[in-house]
């Protein structure tokens, strides 16, 4: 293989070499790091929330009438909702998974004293206040233990502080609190509550409202109806009927009690979309950047190679006249491109890791997994070889007779 002559020819035209190599290097650095970020974001977005999102929607009731009976209205609303044909179940709930707004508490296996307890003594968890229909409405699976009983549901007024006797926690939270044993029947403690609550059930999975929280899998259900200034309901229906049912439910709630505002009607598709809109946006933007870069770099290689072919028409003609086959000319350009790309990739590998280190230092990003750079490098090599095919074919078509024309 005639690498040496190609190489020394290249060294005589360093400008072009440097230009292409630089492009290749930057392209590799951006493509690998972008792919890595995209993969992370897609993994984030694909995590299941544990609930039956396709069949769920939420609606809220905000009373304004003087002397409004909050508890009575919730009872009436729930009875009405559950009686509507097509409604699988409904529950009052204080906050919603994926919604961004929620209630957080520390949970521990020992009573928490804020003055002496260390942060690592307790695990952060979100609190969902639901009634005995909560589990069925959310569509979460109990893997161990049981659901709340109707007689365990208590009312929680605006400034009540205690916790009920029973809680249901997610598997993720149970494993952190009780790594070696079953959590069911065990006592757990939340802020300043010395009596504690007993874990009656363990859920397979239920995410917290905050999708970017590292404890997103740690959630707790407590058997309470909240009697706050506004009440939120979660309603579960058949996925196919959801849109129609939303209108029915909104109208029905407006009808049975005119002393309040029925508002905040949202389906879970919308809630998920807004929870992950930034990650989705980042993914789309990065994909556009990658595509743009590959196209630009590809065009750059084509442009440069075409220019070189034009410059070397005589040289090619002479080589052909001296017996080089078309294939040899083709191979010359492919090899030349391979050398240039490789030089660029060598610099690009350094740049990729440099960029990654910068991202890690400034943005606490993760370390680039090892295989991204080789995969990226293979792609850029392929891009270079593809881009040069056109100009190289044109070069191969140069007639040997060119050599004989005027010098």
């Amino acid at each position, binding site marked *: 293989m005639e690498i040496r002559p190609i190489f020394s020819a290249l060294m005589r035209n360093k*400008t*072009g070499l440097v*230009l*292409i190599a*630089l*492009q290749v290097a*930057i*392209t590799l*650095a*951006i493509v690998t790091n*972008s792919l890595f*970020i995209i993969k992370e974001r897609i993994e984030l977005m694909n995590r299941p929330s544990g609930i039956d999102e396709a069949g769920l929607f939420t609606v809220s009731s*905000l*009373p*304004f*009438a*003087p002397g409004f009976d909050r508890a009575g209205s919730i009872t009436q609303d729930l009875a009405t909702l559950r009686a509507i044909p097509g409604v699988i179940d409904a529950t009052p709930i204080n906050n919603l998974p994926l919604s961004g*707004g929620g209630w957080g508490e520390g949970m521990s296996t020992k009573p928490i004293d*804020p*003055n*002496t*307890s*260390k*942060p690592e003594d307790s695990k952060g968890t979100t609190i969902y206040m639901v009634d005995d229909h909560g589990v069925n409405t959310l569509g979460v699976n109990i893997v161990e233990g049981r659901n709340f009983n109707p007689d365990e549901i208590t009312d929680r007024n*605006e*400034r*009540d*502080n205690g916790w009920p006797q029973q809680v249901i926690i997610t598997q993720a939270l149970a494993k952190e609190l009780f790594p070696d044993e079953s959590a069911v029947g065990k006592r757990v403690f939340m*802020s*300043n509550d010395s009596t504690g609550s007993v874990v009656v059930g363990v859920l397979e999975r239920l995410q917290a409202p905050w999708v970017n929280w590292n404890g997103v899998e740690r959630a707790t259900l407590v058997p309470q109806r909240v009697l706050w200034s506004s009440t939120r309901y979660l309603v579960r229906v058949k996925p196919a009927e959801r849109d129609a049912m939303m209108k029915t439910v909104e109208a029905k709630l407006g009808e049975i009690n005119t002393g*309040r*505002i029925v*508002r905040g009607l949202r389906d879970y598709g919308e809630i998920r979309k*807004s929870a992950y*809109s*930034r990650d*989705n*946006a*980042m993914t*789309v*933007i*990065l994909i556009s*950047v990658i595509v*743009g*870069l590959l196209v*630009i*770099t590809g*065009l*750059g290689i084509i*442009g*440069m190679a*075409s*220019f070189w072919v*034009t*410059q070397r028409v005589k040289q090619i003609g002479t080589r052909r006249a001296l017996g080089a086959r078309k294939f040899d000319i083709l191979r010359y350009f492919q090899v030349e491109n391979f050398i240039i790309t490789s030089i660029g990739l060598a610099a690009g590998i350094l740049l990729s890791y440099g960029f990654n280190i*910068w*991202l890690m230092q*400034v*943005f606490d990003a993760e370390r680039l997994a090892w295989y991204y750079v080789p995969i990226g490098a293979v792609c850029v090599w392929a891009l270079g070889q593809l881009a040069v095919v056109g100009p190289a074919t044109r070069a191969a078509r140069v007639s040997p007779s060119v050599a004989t024309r005027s*010098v």
Partner: protein
Amino acid sequence: MFAYYLRLAVLSLKRNKVLTGLMVAAIGLGIGASMTSLTVFYLMSGNPIPHKNDVLFVPQLDNWSPNQPFDEPNEPPNMLTYRDAMAIVESKQAKRVAIAFTNFFPVEPDNKEIKPEMVTSRLTTGDFFAMFETPFRYGGGWSAQQEADDQRVVVLSKATNEKFFGGSDSVGKRMRINGEEFTVTGVLDDWQPTPKFFDITSGPFEENEDVYMPFRYGIEKELQSSSNNNCWKDAGDGYQAWLESECVWLVGWVELENAGDHDRFLGWMNSYVEEQKKLGRFPRPMNNRLDNVGQWLENQKVVRRDTQVQVALSFGFLAVCLINTVGMLLAKFLGRSGEIGLRRALGASKRQVFAQFLTEAAIVGVAGGLLGLVLAWAGLAGVRQLYGEFERLSQLDVPMVLTAIGLAIASAIVAGLLPTWRACQVAPAVQLKSH
């Protein structure tokens, strides 16, 4: 002479339309991408009230748990307890004080045909309007007397006034909020600082509230914040216990006479905490802070990381596009070595050749810049679609348009320098001999 170079450049660019198109497209794409990300970054990192940057401060008092900071690394809470907020007000150490939280209320229109609606409300002390220079369309904020008398007064946003009063001057009119009659004292004009620097606790780019009501009304109604209430230990039972608790939930700002007053006020904060320590509060080592607007927005990391990464990536993208253009210009200029040689032989100086080719590069730059502007405009429309919430963060304004054009021309000239310089090095004799 310039006109002649311009004509020559246009002729030359027309000769190879594909190559010209590629160069313009490369610069345009690079400029479009970098301008899109830069615009979002610029709007996010803006300081909406620069002329008061040195007199508006956020007092942060570290009353958090002895065992862990409010936020790593050793950040004091970004809100205040009721006790400490009231201590700041009562100390009269600052020229103005704004203490606020948000909640929502039902509004019942007089016309029973119209359904009641929910409004979001900022419950704030009356200095708020003067401190943040809120523009008023009608009327103004409520008076100190009205506030002291616990009168039911309200200031409406422009949109809220449109909705309930059809945009007319509603000052003095009544409005039924949360079951009580409130008198409108003022209507704001368009006002949406970006970022929403005066309260970023529920997101720095959220919409402003619909109405503004006196802070003490919220306390009288025993309300908490509807956005954030953070406690490191249990508040205890009842609203009085909540007010006396270590829970932070109030957004506090002070306005001082001048920048030099900063140290004096921070000194007051420290001596206040010393006093409170004697009462058994503030278990952490002294860690108070008094940031001005700019420092506050920076410390609270208002600019999203993703946006910063996007800016870095898009400038990498621009670099690739420019290197590309250098290559194409080089090919184009050196392809005309014969012409250059001829011109040089006929007496053109290197400087003249330089001017001629740089003109050509600049034309490519201007065309690329214009294309880049169009692409940036489209890119921002895309960003708006993607993020949904970004209405205000994705608008091109005059400074950004000028930056785009400037960046494009500068880029093209930088890209044109090397090829132009190489074109000037063409030796006339060699070129003439070979043809």
